[in-house]
């Protein structure tokens, strides 16, 4: 399934105000062409507004929006070559699946003087994308006769059939049940590879963002806090907020020297053998096990030391800790994250 070249997106000092509330606050962002970029952040951080502004459904208050360098800010919604899948799918209730998918192409044919793509071409591409998303038996069904998963796939098919250079996904997996979500995740990534467009996915689920994206953007209060490869954001969180927001369980934090903070990931803690001394330079953490969360291949052990608590991950093969057991573990210096008094990363 060929596609036009994916576009590289760029937001320059972009702001969006709804009356007095500020949804995007001088945001700067670069979305690499052809990437699968996930935008994650707490609710109200401006990620949905980002999509609505990119798609053109909302006008920009100030700043610029570029695609491959071309200024899109003033270009009307329909003419930006941007397709979007809504969170609640927004299918056309009175059209069957085939009509839903082909509506965009039929509009294109109406608008162009050469009346391209032709009726046969539209039918072919509709059939092709329907097969790709396993919808070919459902083409005559109406939206209200479809399951949640099927509706989501129709919404995807409708967006993808026009071969858009940019595909926006608004919490695409939120409405699916757990089982369907896993297969849909793989489906979306496969789809991204096949159509080669730049995909920008908005989600509140940081786990989803980490697993699916090749470019991760963390937002807060209308601003981009960090944008990088997922493993880089996971390994080098730029501040306390990113550190605790990305990755589960949350990064353990405890007061560091001179008011700063020391953070370590649950999997970076190494259990000491009874009587073993803590190696030099390593951080020693002690406590007793409060509860254990078994996840099949590993176990997250939540321990308490007086007022503070921390989580340690044990992998299969070691002796499983039980609530009430004493815990002494150490963290290697190079695995430690140091934050200053304001939560910004040091070094």
């Amino acid at each position: 399934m060929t596609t036009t070249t994916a576009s590289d997106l760029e937001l320059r000092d972009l702001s969006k105000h709804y009356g007095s509330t500020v949804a995007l606050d001088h945001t700067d962002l670069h979305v690499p062409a052809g990437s699968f970029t996930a935008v994650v952040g707490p609710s109200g951080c401006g990620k949905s507004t980002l999509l609505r502004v990119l798609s053109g459904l909302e006008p920009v208050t100030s700043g610029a929006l570029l695609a491959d360098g071309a200024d899109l800010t003033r270009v009307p919604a329909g003419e930006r070559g941007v397709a979007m899948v809504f969170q609640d799918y927004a299918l056309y209730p009175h059209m069957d699946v085939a009509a839903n998918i082909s509506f965009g192409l039929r509009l294109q044919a109406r608008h162009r003087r050469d009346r391209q793509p032709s009726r046969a071409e539209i039918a072919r591409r509709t059939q092709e994308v329907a097969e790709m998303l396993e919808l070919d038996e459902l083409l005559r069904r109406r939206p209200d006769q479809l399951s949640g998963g099927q509706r989501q796939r129709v919404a995807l098919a409708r967006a993808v059939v026009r071969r858009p250079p940019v595909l926006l996904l608004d919490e695409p997996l939120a409405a699916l049940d757990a089982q369907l979500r896993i297969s849909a995740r793989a489906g979306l990534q496969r789809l991204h590879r096949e159509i080669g467009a730049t995909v920008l996915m908005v989600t509140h689920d940081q786990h989803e963002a980490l697993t699916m994206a090749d470019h991760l953007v963390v937002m807060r209060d209308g601003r981009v806090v960090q944008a990088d490869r997922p493993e880089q954001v996971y390994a080098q969180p730029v501040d306390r907020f990113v550190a605790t927001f990305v990755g589960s369980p949350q990064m353990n934090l405890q007061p560091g020297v001179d008011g700063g903070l020391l953070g370590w990931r649950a999997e970076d803690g190494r259990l000491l053998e009874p009587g073993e001394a803590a190696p030099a330079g390593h951080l020693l953490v002690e406590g007793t096990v409060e509860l254990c969360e078994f996840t099949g291949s590993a176990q997250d052990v939540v321990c308490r030391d007086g007022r503070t608590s921390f989580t340690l991950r044990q992998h299969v093969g070691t002796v499983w800790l039980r609530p009430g057991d004493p815990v002494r573990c150490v963290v290697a210096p190079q695995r430690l994250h140091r934050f200053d008094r304001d939560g910004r990363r040091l070094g």
Partner: protein
Amino acid sequence: MTAAATLAAQAPVVARRRRPGLAGWSYLLPLLLVVGVWIYLPVLATVVLSLLDWNLTSPTAEFVGLDNLRRLLSEPEFAQAAGQTLLYAVALLPFSTAVPLLLAVLLWARPGRASTIYRSLLFVPAMVAPVAVAVAWRFLLNPLNGLVNEVTGRVGLPAVNWLGDPAWALPVIVVVTAARVVAFNMLLFSAALSGLDRRAVEAARLEGATGFEVVWFVVLPQLRSTTVLLGLLSVVLAGQWSFTNVSVLTQGGPDGVTDNVYHRIHTLGFGYFETGMASTASVLVLVFFALAALAAEAVRRRRGRS
């Protein structure tokens, strides 16, 4: 005692207390009572009256069978009135469907304080006393010194005796009636529009649809059932909606061109006290609409739409 058994023990209590059959019918009773006594009993009386020659006050009424029907069909006035009732239905159709739908869509396209104010203003004609509006129109349409002829005169058009000229009288009555119909149906369409999924409209915008295409391909198709319903209602009620204006402005004249079956029945029943003929005319109207309703039902069922 498995869990299922204990559950079963309780179930019958619930089932026994709930008797949908009896309760259901007792809920329907007020409606059946009221419609039965005050609509269908009088219909029966009308059918009986249509077979008698009685003027309501004389003690004797003699059975004349279909004589009333023969006299009714022989007089040209009733046939003319019946034909014109259909004319009213067709003429009022755009004012009960297209015009209010257009206004409702315009208001719906730009939600906000302005559209709320416009919607309230546009609903006013539905609330003002019909007699007052009719009288105001008599002023405006006065051939000698009315405002309408004043304006058309300035533009160079000849002065028209709007309510007195057989060519113009019916269209004028339709226009005078239209305001109230547009006002009512505009609000009903607005209600239907508010039920639509706004996200689907945004999706269409993203697919490159212009404002017009969004309305034509996404919005209007979803309003088809409401439009058809209001269209049918308009065909059925057009005669009744125009009744007040006909009786106040033209009394069915000139040369009977503005008469419709409802005004004719009123003239027969109350003007001439021909109770027999008035009842016969009503039975004919009732039979016509009952057949039309059955035909519509058959068409709908054969088309298989639920």
